[in-house]
């Protein structure tokens, strides 16, 4: 077997091997058991005292949402103002300008919602101050927000609760101090010892071996690159993200960054098993998500390894696979694996240019974001999956003629309405956005934002809205998206695509928790079996495939047939 394929398999195996004990650790942190990091407990208590927060006060689901939303609004205002004025603030050695109002709006939201869609290039679009005080800061707190929302839902799934679902600030702060910060430090240290810059020097000017004078952008990047992956944020320090040789210097850092981005999403599944003492349910969820991941990964691996048929026809050696937009140090296979991982878990960092992926791979990347529930983002992945569980319980309940119940609570009309709304919101945002932009473009092609003609141009627009609604952040980067149309429309898609899928599951879980607990009996539909897992998988695929199939046919699938069957 070749070393490229072994690299991919090993990366996944290592991820799962770390995720299981790490999931156990996360469960311990939030159930208040002893852990190795308890020595920072006095520091956390000091923070709560300074902020006058009573971290032991229990909150119900509405109070959780109010706390979550109000602190998010604060961050938005803060980030918007900082980006708008960065050009005249300190720590700006490269003399980069302030952002325009529409770009500040888009960027502030994009990082607030853990999406990290970037309509600028890091080398010229931000200053060191905003890279650290806005971008890095939001990467920590948005990931912690996702985890906090998920833990509330975990709490609501317990047997003996009604109203007290933990304290938002307590869960939120511990997500940072106990999980995100310590692991980020480890990752950042690995990066700096492999050549990623971390100092505050500005651009360097060098004379090359051949005698040309070029500049090299640098900066305190290592810490940001660590949290961008660990928190499934994905926004790069440099324009091309982790394809940049300083952001991702070699195959080792590539493995570390790939492991880092999937670590928490997978660990949280196992954390659910340990936390609720429902290990079997966790295994079933992990199994379904892994099958979902593989069903997207395998076609991508094959397509990228076989390369571009139009280039094969030119009669050169394409045994390395499709290399347009890829880096030699990673190769086609590790790039294919990354492109699927980053789209299913809403990271959106890239180590190859997705715009130049083969049409099959583009389809799979889009499907990864359209389903958005295979592992999924930090915390929010399981929240999305939770919605599909509720729908699957309801449908299978109807099929076998039993009252739909999930973990001992009846699912009724109100919960189903919320779940359906959240599930349908995603295709609604994507398809309406793509239709609108296609209309504007065909009406006036002089807007000129497409980098490729024909079907692929359509895919560029479809990808941008899919990435926004899924809070992913990757792009078909050829799209000229730094203008008011894209900045504002995707900005609103980002907000809706983030907060409704958080509010929905938290509300459902909160409402269910207040219902009477019905102990399991022979008449209960079991939700921790393989059969139910397959049912959930079918619900996810049907909702994604049915809603998006026509759009996929117009974009990547049509491109596939022109390229492979001309």
């Amino acid at each position, binding site marked *: 077997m070749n*070393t490229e394929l*072994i*690299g991919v398999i090993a*990366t996944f195996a290592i991820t799962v091997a770390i995720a299981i004990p790490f999931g156990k650790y996360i469960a311990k942190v939030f159930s208040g058991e002893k852990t190795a990091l308890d020595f920072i407990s006095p520091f956390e208590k000091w923070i709560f005292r*300074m*902020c*006058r*927060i009573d971290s032991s006060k229990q909150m119900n689901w509405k109070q959780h949402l*109010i706390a979550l939303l109000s602190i998010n609004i*604060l961050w938005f205002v803060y980030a918007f103002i900082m980006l708008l004025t960065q050009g005249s603030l300190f720590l700006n050695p490269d003399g980069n300008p302030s952002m325009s109002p529409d770009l500040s709006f888009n960027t502030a939201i994009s990082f607030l919602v853990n999406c990290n869609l970037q309509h600028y290039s890091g*080398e*010229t679009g931000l200053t060191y101050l905003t890279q650290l005080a806005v971008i*890095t*800061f939001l990467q920590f*707190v948005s990931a912690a927000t996702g985890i906090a929302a998920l833990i509330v839902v975990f709490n609501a799934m317990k047997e003996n609760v009604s109203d007290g679902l933990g304290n938002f*600030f307590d869960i939120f702060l511990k997500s*940072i101090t106990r999980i995100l910060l310590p692991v980020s430090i480890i990752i*950042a240290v690995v990066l*700096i010892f492999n*050549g990623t*810059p*971390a*100092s505050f*020097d500005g651009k360097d000017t060098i*004379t090359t*071996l*051949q005698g040309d004078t*070029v*500049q090299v*952008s*640098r900066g305190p990047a290592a810490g940001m690159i660590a949290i961008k992956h660990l928190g499934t944020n994905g926004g790069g320090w*440099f324009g*091309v993200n982790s*394809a940049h*040789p*300083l952001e991702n210097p*070699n*195959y*080792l850092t590539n*493995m570390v960054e790939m492991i880092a981005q999937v670590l928490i999403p997978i660990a949280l599944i196992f954390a659910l098993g340990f936390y609720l003492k429902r290990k079997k349910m966790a295994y079933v969820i992990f199994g379904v998500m892994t099958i979902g991941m593989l069903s997207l990964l395998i076609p991508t691996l094959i397509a990228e390894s076989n390369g571009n048929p*139009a*280039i094969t026809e*030119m009669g*050169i*050696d394409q045994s*390395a696979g*499709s*290399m*347009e*937009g890829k*880096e*030699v*140090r990673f190769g086609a296979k590790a790039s294919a694996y990354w492109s699927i991982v980053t789209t299913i878990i809403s990271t959106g960092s890239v*180590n*190859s240019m997705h*715009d*130049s992926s083969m049409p099959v791979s583009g389809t799979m990347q889009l499907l990864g974001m359209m389903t958005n529930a295979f592992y999924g983002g930090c915390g929010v992945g399981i929240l999305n999956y939770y919605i599909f569980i509720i729908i699957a319980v309801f449908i299978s309940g109807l099929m076998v003629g039993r009252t739909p119940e999930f973990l001992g609570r009846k699912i009724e009309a109100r919960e189903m309405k919320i779940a359906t709304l959240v599930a349908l919101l995603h295709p609604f945002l994507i398809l309406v956005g793509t239709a609108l932009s296609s209309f504007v473009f065909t009406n006036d092609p002089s807007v000129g934002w497409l980098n*490729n003609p024909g079907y692929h141009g359509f895919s560029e627009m479809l990808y941008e809205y899919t990435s926004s609604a899924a809070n992913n952040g990757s792009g078909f980067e*050829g799209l000229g998206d730094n203008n008011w149309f894209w900045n504002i429309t995707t900005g609103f898609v980002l907000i809706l695509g983030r907060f409704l899928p958080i509010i929905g599951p938290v509300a459902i879980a909160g409402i269910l928790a207040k219902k009477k607990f019905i102990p399991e009996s022979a008449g209960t539909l079991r939700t921790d079996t393989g059969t139910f897992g397959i049912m959930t998988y079918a619900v996810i695929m049907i909702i994604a495939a049915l809603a998006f199939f026509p759009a996929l046919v117009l974009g990547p699938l049509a*491109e596939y047939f022109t390229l492979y069957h001309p």
Partner: protein
Amino acid sequence: MKTYILPSLKLTGILILICSVMYPLLIAGISMFAPGNGEGKKITAHNNVVGYENIGQQFTDDSYFQGRPSAVDYNAAGSAGSNKGGANPDYLATVQARIDTFLVHNPEIDKAAIPCDLVTASGSGLDPNISVKAAKIQVARIAKIRNKSAKEINDLIDKLIEKPLLGLFGPEKINVLKLNIALNEL
């Protein structure tokens, strides 16, 4: 709402201190002990800094090994890929033109042996590496221009092959800048 705003403001301030001041300073501090002191690993030749180990450079002269096509001409003030789709006719014409140009500069070689990484643009535009095949196919040209035997140049390449991680994971590759520096010293 009001009961949440004030604590949230204070918490935000403290977290900015932790995540955006203490954390990056800690990492910058540790980086003092890393190769390149956290400024990126530099390479010197004849006591001159000639570039960064990880940042590719443009080589247009036929006496040097050439790297991959770049969408930013290897100016690391920025970074970009071509972002061209595989079926784009303009893009395919560009690739064909690169193949033709390569054949003009390397008349001795067989077209079927040109590895695709030499005619496709990298993701970053700064790719420091090429495949081993991409180095070997340039040997005949360089040996001729530099008046060396093909064996000498081939041995140099073999010496500089970067093996997969632990010999197990990922592709083999050549760092173009290091290879060209070694070539000058030959």
